């Protein structure tokens, strides 16, 4: 009998950033820092991805990688020449759970 594969639990981190810069450059900057910290293997293993919902940036990754994703977001302080600070608003297991904060 084949072994049963466990489905990894995903978490969604709603973030808000300061500074006059779009969501896409911020998402790229967070991903760059994450890749610098954990490499390409870490990027793949963590299931790291970014998305926009209702004009807000959401970072998604597997549960064990949430601290690493928050650290990466916190390290971003400059995006395309604009001073930017990324703050986390809420961490949830579902996108629906973030809806009240979006």
């Amino acid at each position, binding site marked *: 009998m084949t072994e049963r594969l466990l489905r990894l639990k995903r978490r969604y981190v709603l973030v808000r950033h*300061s500074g006059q810069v779009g969501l896409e450059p911020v998402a790229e900057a967070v991903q760059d*820092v994450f890749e*610098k910290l954990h490499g390409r293997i870490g990027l793949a293993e963590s299931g790291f991805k970014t998305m926009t919902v209702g004009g807000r940036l959401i970072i998604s990754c597997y*549960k*064990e990688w*949430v*601290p*690493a994703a*928050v*650290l990466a977001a*916190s*390290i971003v*302080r400059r995006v395309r020449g604009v*001073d930017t*600070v990324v*703050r*986390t608003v809420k*961490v949830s297991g579902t996108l629906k759970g973030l809806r009240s904060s979006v």
Partner: protein
Amino acid sequence: MPRKYVDMHVLTMDRSMASSLAGMGYRHVCVVGDEVSDASNLGITVHRKKYLEVESRNDLLKRLRRLERNVLVCVKPLTREALMVAARDGRVGTVMVYGGMADVDMHVAQVFKNILEITVAEVIECFNDDRRWRSLLRIVRAADAVGVPTIISSGASCEEELLPPRQLGYILAALKGVESPVLDSVSTIPLKLLEDVCV
């Protein structure tokens, strides 16, 4: 009962920073600089903090003697000798971690009675330098392994740089390599330290 959060290291505090801290759920803040505005109407207690950069044992002891009692003291030890003294002196509140600090080896760990403190501002600075980043991670993980309590603060110099307490907890969790946010490092441990100092 909800947690009371503490930001242990803020460089300055004006009205906008006070209201931002209150909005994030902080109840106590320690300010290093001289510019401090009253925030009691926002439910925030402001504590003064003395920040010392010391190079030797004599330097530290001399500067500690000059201070009043019941002042929260944070020491940045520039040498291993200064670290050994700062780690065990009862008048010192916290020892500031920075990239390139002497390692927390078994000799330092044996005498460590105080609390290690790390700021997000320092984490960001270390991130740009591989050697300092490795040193920072090694110190935080060694301290965790030998049970030295660690706290994390923003080290903010303006309102923009302030971060919510849960985010600080997640940052320390990432540095320690654990899965859940280390909320004690922004609430229980610093609160106990403030209580001890203020008595």
